[in-house]
């Protein structure tokens, strides 16, 4: 083939994939090779057996930069099958860069059906939100985690934090909450709010807003957490107790807003503040776009 012919062949191939003629034959199903998937599944089984415990795994290079959800992508790639329906959200939205690129990645490497409807999905990969709609037992929620170690900023030594997890020495976590109250008058941690899973391990629920913490408690769906750069996987099995740390006289509390969502009018959802102009104009809208759109449709 001449060079010109080679170049001409590439668009054709791309067009074929775009036309839905099956997954890209140049990749193994779901990108990872089967041995890698087995390795990740073993780590996940261990993580499910010890809720909240961070299991080290041999994280692979993925065709996207660290911080784009390489951990979550590896977890999803290891559990996804041809019959699965995938939903990917980024801060609750189905149509933002991270969500779109990861959804396209799986469309191309697995050819599975994708959706934006929460209840239709069997696997939901998320960056920092839990969908507003309650999840069911046949769904799996996959989190992309940047820093899995909740004690990291208080105790930089990994050897020491592991020992603290093993011996359940979690006083330091409350020292952080103490410091919050001392500085701000209330527990000012609003995301990555530490939780105690199944009465033992303290876990960082990835940078989800604390608004979502109560949803983790006894959730019917399996929750898997993947941190690609930090090479850790952890999990919350279905119906596991998840308790957000607090003080007796400063109980755990979620964020509240004074106004409803300006698009759908919901009052019970997590709202994003959107700047609308350069003169201080702003509006509050649901961060979960699927929930918001459907609330609107129902109203009409």
């Amino acid at each position, binding site marked *: 083939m001449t060079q010109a012919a080679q170049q001409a062949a590439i668009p054709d191939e791309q067009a074929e994939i775009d036309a839905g003629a099956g997954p890209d034959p140049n990749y193994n199903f779901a990108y990872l090779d089967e041995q890698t998937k087995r390795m990740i599944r073993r780590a996940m089984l261990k993580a499910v057996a010890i809720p909240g415990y961070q299991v080290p795994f041999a994280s692979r290079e993925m065709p996207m930069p660290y911080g784009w959800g390489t951990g979550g992508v590896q977890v999803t790639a290891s559990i996804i099958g041809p019959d699965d329906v995938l939903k990917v959200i980024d801060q609750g939205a189905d149509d933002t860069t991270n969500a779109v690129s990861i959804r396209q990645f799986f469309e191309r490497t697995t050819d599975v059906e994708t959706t934006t409807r929460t209840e239709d999905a069997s696997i939901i990969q998320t960056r920092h939100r839990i969908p507003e709609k309650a999840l069911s037992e046949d769904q799996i929620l996959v989190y992309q985690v940047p820093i899995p170690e909740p004690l990291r900023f*208080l105790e930089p030594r990994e050897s020491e934090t592991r020992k603290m997890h093993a011996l359940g020495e979690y006083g330091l976590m409350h020292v952080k909450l*103490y410091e919050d109250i001392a500085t701000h008058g209330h527990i000012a941690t609003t995301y990555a709010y530490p939780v105690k899973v199944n009465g033992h391990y303290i876990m960082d629920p990835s940078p989800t807003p604390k608004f979502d913490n109560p949803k983790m408690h006894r959730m019917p769906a399996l929750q898997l957490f993947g941190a690609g750069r930090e090479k850790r996987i952890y999990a919350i099995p279905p119906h596991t107790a998840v308790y957000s740390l607090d003080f007796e006289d400063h109980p755990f509390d979620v964020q509240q807003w004074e106004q409803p969502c300006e698009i759908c009018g919901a009052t019970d959802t997590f709202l994003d503040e959107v700047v609308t102009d350069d003169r201080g104009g702003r509006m509050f809208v649901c961060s979960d776009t699927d929930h918001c759109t459907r609330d609107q449709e129902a109203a009409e």
Partner: protein
Amino acid sequence: MSSTEEILDQPLLRVTNLTKSYGGNAACRDVSFDLWPGEILAVVGESGSGKTTLLKCISAQLACDDGRIEYLMRDGILRDIHGLSEAERRFLMRTDWGFVHQNPRDGLRMRVSAGANIAERMIAVGGRNYGKIRGTAEDWMDQVELDPGRVDHQPGTFSGGMQQRLQIARNLVTHPRLVFMDEPTGGLDVSVQARLLDLLRSLVNKMQLSAVLVTHDLAVARLLSHRIMVMQGGEVIETGLTDQVLDDPQHPYSQMLVSSILPV
């Protein structure tokens, strides 16, 4: 009190033939002593005489090569601390023991406020009421002569002497029975040293603390300790009541040490 008498017939800490060497160099050789409840023992000697190694071994931070270190647990039984599990040892370290480092930066968390530093041990033993924890922290700031109004300030904004007092408060808040002190007044200027010593003496009296105090400063030993142990080259060369040893040293090295104090 009969319970006090019962406890008093056993030492709080019993060290028997402790030996620790680094490669071929013996840092501590055959060190034995008993520490009784309410007693302050000073370990003096020049740099490199094995004082700090001894302190690290008896506070279970360093494994010793030979010998036994037994501690009278709260249940009244003497137990070998190197036979305890790591979890038990760490629990002891946070509750029943205190460790005052020479450099307060080693013993403090510099990135959280003074109050949080004092709060840490209370939280570690299960304190979960913010108001009470903060109240106790302010109370302890007051006891170590720090302004309780500075409870939310970072230790980095405190002077060296204040940091040292904060470290002491942080250690004493859980009412430990035994405190290890490694040159607690080292690196402080003389007037601050005097105030700190005065404070330590009154706290030790009030709380009936036992302490092992490592120092090269004989004046500190004289002021704080009941008994003194002079070390040289890893061995204990003389031991006795503080006043006795300092006023009438028997060993040539102790005599030299005592005579080398600069008169003002």
